[in-house]
């Protein structure tokens, strides 16, 4: 579904990613883990066009999307729930979800039944239904995370990029987020998950890549990495 080849990207003169290659097969959940500053978020930003890569190829299906602006990437069926959630604070919950379906409502992508998808989101996140008319900026952190995920799903994406859905959430809420991810996986949504909490990410993922300083340090089936002490050393040093 998504294939990244020798991706180099950074900010200004700083190269953060020094040539990453990985792929996300259709219907699978792949996770990128690694400590702060390893380049996980930069990778997602480069894929979704928020950041222009310096070189490398990003294949979505058969098309190379590297260097396209983010709205064009979105129109090709990639949804990105960004770090820090980035919901639209002054709009209502329902309008946030509706904007998730912008590409469908404006006829760029197949429209389908948008109203039914609203119900689906409210079914997935009952809390959002209660607060559908409320300004999104007034939601709690956990609710904003649900909204960010719901908003991304409203485009009926071919692939969903999730950036640190657990960030800043209390452990109880983190559980809830991962329950949702599991549910989406059962529905065969293709996902690329970036997580700092390696343990939980490895629990739900099929395949994992461990990033360190802008390079992939090792990869493997998520299960096999679960108890690998190298993962811990990638986070806290001392290897």
């Amino acid at each position, binding site marked *: 579904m998504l294939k990244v080849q020798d991706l180099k990207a950074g900010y200004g003169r700083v190269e953060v990613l020094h040539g990453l290659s990985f792929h996300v097969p259709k219907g699978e959940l792949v996770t990128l883990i690694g400590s702060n500053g390893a380049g996980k978020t930069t990778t997602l930003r480069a894929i979704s066009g928020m950041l222009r890569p310096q070189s490398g190829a990003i294949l979505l299906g058969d098309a190379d999307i590297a260097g396209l602006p983010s*709205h064009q990437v*979105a129109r090709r069926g990639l949804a990105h729930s960004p770090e820090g959630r980035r919901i*639209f*604070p002054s*709009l209502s919950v329902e309008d946030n979800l509706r904007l998730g379906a912008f590409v469908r409502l404006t006829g760029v992508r197949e429209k389908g039944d948008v109203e039914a998808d609203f119900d689906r989101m409210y079914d997935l996140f009952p809390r959002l239904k209660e607060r559908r008319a409320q300004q999104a900026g007034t939601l709690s952190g956990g609710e904003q995370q649900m909204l960010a995920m719901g908003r991304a799903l409203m485009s009926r994406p071919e692939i969903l990029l999730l950036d640190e859905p657990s960030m800043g959430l209390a452990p109880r809420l983190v559980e809830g987020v991962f329950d949702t991810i599991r549910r989406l996986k059962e529905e065969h949504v293709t996902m690329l998950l970036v997580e700092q909490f390696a343990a939980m990410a490895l629990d739900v993922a099929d395949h994992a890549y461990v990033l360190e300083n802008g390079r992939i340090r090792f990869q493997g089936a998520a299960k096999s990495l679960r108890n690998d002490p190298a993962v811990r050393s990638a986070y806290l040093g001392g290897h």
Partner: protein
Amino acid sequence: MDWISTLLQAPTTSIFWQLVASGVAVGMIYATIAFGYQLTFATSKTLNFGQGEALMLGAMLGLTLLPYLGYWLMLPVILIFGMAQGAVVERLGVRPAIETKSEFGWIMATIALGIIFRNMAENIWGRDDLKFPSPLPETAIELGTVRILPAEIMVVVGALLMMAAVETFNRRSIYGKAFVATSNDIDAAGLMGIDTRRVITMSYAMSSMTAAFAGVLVAPVTLTGATMGAVLALKAFAVAIIGGLDSALGAIVGGILLGVIETLTGYYVSTGYKDVPGLILVLIVLAIRPAGLFGRRTIKKV
């Protein structure tokens, strides 16, 4: 509360309320222009320093078209013209500066475009002020002791309608929501598939459209000429600052406040000084509360 009733009854007070009424009318014009500033500031954190010229062009072109189209048919033409003019300003002056992240660039470029438009207008329509005929009767309506010109009422109603129309568009249509989303968070809006560059162009188009409309509204009340926009735009900026660059209600309150202060100053102090309080207000508000009286304070991030 005795003093209020004395104030209302005394002969001088009818003049006072008279001044308040025309102050409100002028204030609504400021509010409309300020509203235009808010539109572009919301999407791109930029302002059109040639906003006054957008207003002036609307009024001048309106005056030219009036004999051919009549007042009501002229209006939509002016609105479309305003949109086109705003889009031109954005493409020529603002977009290249946004791409190179040059604040100096867009400030200077919109100023330059403004003086070009003004100079063009001087050469096309001459340097003298012209009279813009009002579509409504010229005789004042008497409300108690206060006499109000129909044109002034039209200014208030028209300005409110314009703002309401833009707000409704923003709240109801998916494109309007895309506009609000872009002003909330431009990166996240891009991720939704919204072409944010086009939204910025649209915001300039709408901004100039409201200004051109304000020009047609204000023209019968004042005189029409190539330099009519400059001071109006500057004072509207004062209003945008007082009201905050993110609040339409703030713009209306600020506009009326300034308009009334001005007409009162003009009458009780001197006509020559009537522009001064607004300008001093800009200096004071910016010195004390840069985010405006109604604006949200933002947290400084490092």
